C-alpha cells in the first residue's frame, strides 16, 4: 500500500453498532475539506464518494498525484463552488484511503484484518460520517451530494438524519441495488478470489497483492460505467499502435489496451479486500426493504429539498430507478426536482465534463443557497 501522508483523520470514539451486529469504536475516519466554513456554519456540503473514490474530491490527490475524482464539479467557481461552500468528504469505512478498513491491523490479533473485517453497509458508512458534523460543530448541512454509491449514501443519510441537511442531491443511483448490479459486483469479487495471490484475503501477511484479479474486476466494472455508443465512438475497432491484426492475444484493439491500462493503474491505488467489502455494501443496499416495501417512509420525516439527476445513457443505474426515488418522494409531498441529462458517457457521466449536468448542479445549489429561509 502507498504511504498515506497528508491524510486528515478523525478518530471516532463513540461506539458504532454495525448492521452485522459487531460494534466498533475508536476507529479512524479519514477526511478532507475544501473551502472554509462560514461563521453561521450554514455553508457545509458533505460529499459522498462512489465505489472506488476517496476523500480527495478535487485538486491533486496527494496519494495518487492525479486529479481528484470530482475535479470537474468541485472547486473554485465550479458547480460545487469552494469559494462559497465548505466541502467535506470522508473515505468510507471499509475503504483504503485511511478510514477503518480491511487493510488495517486488528488490535486483538495484531494481524491485518483482511476478510476478518466486519461486513459493512451503506447505513454503517453514513452512521460513521455523521460524526463529522459534531467534529466541525455543524448543526445542519447545506447539502448532501453524491453519485452512484455516493447517491445511495445521500438517500440513507436523509433517511437516518432527516433534519441534518437542507438539500439532498442523489445522482445516478438507486434505492435498491438491482440483480444486474449485484451480478456485476459478484463478477468482480470472483475475479479477485480467483487470483491465487488473494490467499483468502490474507495476502498482506505474504507481502503479495492479487493485482491480476483486481485488475480484471476493474476492467469488467469499467465497461459498465460506459455506454455502447460512447465506446463505439471513442474506440470503434481502432487498432492499438499497429496497422493490422496480429493473430494473437495481445491488445490489438485500442479498447483492449485502454481497459488493461485502467486495470493496471487501479491496482496501484486500491485494495482488493476493500473492493470486496464496498461492493458488498452496495449489494446489501435496499432502502425499500429497510422500510418494509414502502420507500416513501424513508423520507416522510424530512423537509430537505431534493434534486435528483440521472443520465440517458446510464444503464447501470438507469433513469427509471432514479425516477422511482422521485415517485417515492412525491408520494409524501416532499420538495423534489428531477432532470435526466442527455449524455453518451454512461454511468460515468457524473464524473466527467458534461456541461448540462454541471450547470444543473450549480444552479440548484446556488439558487437553493440564496433562499435563506429554506
Amino acid at each position, binding site marked *: 500500500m502507498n504511504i498515506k501522508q497528508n491524510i486528515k483523520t478523525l478518530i471516532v470514539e463513540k461506539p458504532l453498532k454495525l448492521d452485522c451486529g459487531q460494534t466498533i469504536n475508536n476507529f479512524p475516519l479519514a477526511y478532507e475539506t475544501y473551502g472554509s466554513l462560514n461563521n453561521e456554519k450554514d455553508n457545509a456540503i458533505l460529499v459522498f464518494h462512489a465505489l472506488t473514490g476517496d476523500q480527495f474530491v478535487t485538486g491533486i490527490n496527494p496519494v495518487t498525484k492525479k486529479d481528484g475524482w470530482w475535479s470537474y464539479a468541485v472547486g473554485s467557481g465550479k458547480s460545487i463552488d469552494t469559494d462559497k461552500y465548505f466541502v467535506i468528504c470522508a473515505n468510507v469505512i471499509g475503504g483504503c484511503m485511511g478510514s477503518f478498513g480491511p487493510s488495517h491491523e486488528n488490535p486483538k490479533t495484531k494481524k491485518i484484518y483482511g476478510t476478518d473485517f466486519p461486513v459493512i453497509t451503506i447505513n454503517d458508512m453514513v452512521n460513521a460520517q455523521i460524526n463529522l458534523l459534531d467534529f466541525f460543530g455543524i448543526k445542519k448541512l447545506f447539502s448532501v451530494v453524491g453519485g452512484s454509491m455516493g447517491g445511495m449514501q445521500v438517500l440513507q443519510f436523509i433517511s437516518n438524519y432527516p433534519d441534518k441537511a437542507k438539500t439532498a442531491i442523489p445522482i445516478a443511483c438507486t434505492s435498491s441495488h438491482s440483480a444486474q448490479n449485484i451480478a456485476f459486483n459478484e463478477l468482480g469479487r470472483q475475479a479477485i478470489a480467483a487470483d491465487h495471490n488473494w490467499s483468502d484475503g490474507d495476502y498482506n501477511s505474504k507481502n503479495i497483492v492479487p493485482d491480476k484479479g483486481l485488475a480484471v474486476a476493474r476492467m469488467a466494472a469499467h465497461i459498465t460505467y460506459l455506454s455502447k455508443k460512447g465506446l463505439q465512438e471513442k474506440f470503434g475497432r481502432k487498432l492499438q499502435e499497429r496497422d493490422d491484426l496480429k493473430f494473437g492475444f495481445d491488445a490489438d484493439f485500442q479498447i483492449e489496451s485502454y481497459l488493461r491500462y485502467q486495470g493496471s493503474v487501479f491496482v496501484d491505488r486500491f485494495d482488493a479486500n476493500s473492493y470486496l467489502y464496498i461492493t458488498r455494501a452496495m449489494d446489501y443496499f435496499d432502502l425499500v426493504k429497510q422500510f418494509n416495501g414502502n420507500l416513501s417512509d424513508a423520507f416522510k420525516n424530512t423537509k430537505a429539498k431534493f434534486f435528483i439527476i440521472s443520465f440517458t445513457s446510464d444503464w447501470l443505474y438507469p433513469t427509471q430507478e432514479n425516477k422511482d426515488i422521485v415517485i417515492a418522494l*412525491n408520494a409524501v*409531498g416532499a420538495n423534489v426536482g428531477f432532470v435526466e441529462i442527455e449524455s453518451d458517457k454512461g454511468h460515468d457521466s457524473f464524473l466527467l465534463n458534461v456541461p448540462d449536468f454541471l450547470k444543473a448542479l450549480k444552479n440548484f445549489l446556488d439558487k437553493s443557497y440564496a433562499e435563506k429561509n429554506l
Partner: protein
Amino acid sequence: MKPEYKIISDLIEKDAKVLDVGCDDGTLMEFLKTNKNANIRGIEISKEKVQICIAKGLTVIEGNAEFDLKQFPNDSFEYVVLGQTLQAFINPETVIRELLRVGNKAIVTIPNFGHWKVRLNLLFKGTMPITNSLPHDWYNTPNIHMCTIKDFVRFSKIINFKIFKSLALINENVSDINNSNLIFKNLFGELGIFLIEK
C-alpha cells in the same frame, strides 16, 4: 408573459400549493410565487425548459404529464394548472381526471378552435387553420385534440366535472362565459380559461 397568467393568478388563493403541468420556462411559476406566495411545483417534458426552471430556482420534475401525474397522491395540491396543452395529449379525458385527482381544483386553459378567424380560415382557404395561437401546419402540430370553448363546456357534462368559473380572453380583455353568451364567446374568445372541480 402571456396575458392569461394574471387571470390564472387571480383564480388562486394566497399561499396555495400549486402544480403547474407543462410549466414551460417557469414564467407562470415565478409569477405565482411572487404574487401569491404559492408553494409551487412544475412538471415539464422538455429538458431545456427544465434547465431554465432550475436556473430560476424552481422545483420542477422532468416528465410527461400524460404518464407522470400518477406519481402524485390524491389531493396533493390545492390547484393544478394546465395551460394550453390539453389539446396536445393523446387522451385528454385521462389527463383531466388525473388533474382533478391530484388537485382539489384545476385551472385549464384552451386555445379556442371555435374562434371566428379559425372558422373563416377553414371556410375560405379550405386548409387547416393557421393563426397566431395555432402556428403549426396540420402535419407537424403537437395539437392533436383541438377543441372549442363550447366543446369544453360539453366535455364537462360528458365526463362529469364541474366548471366553477369560465372566462374568455378577447383582445387581452377577460370576460365571464355563461349559458346565454356561450355562442358569442365561442366565436370571439381566443382563449378559454376554466376553473374546474370534480
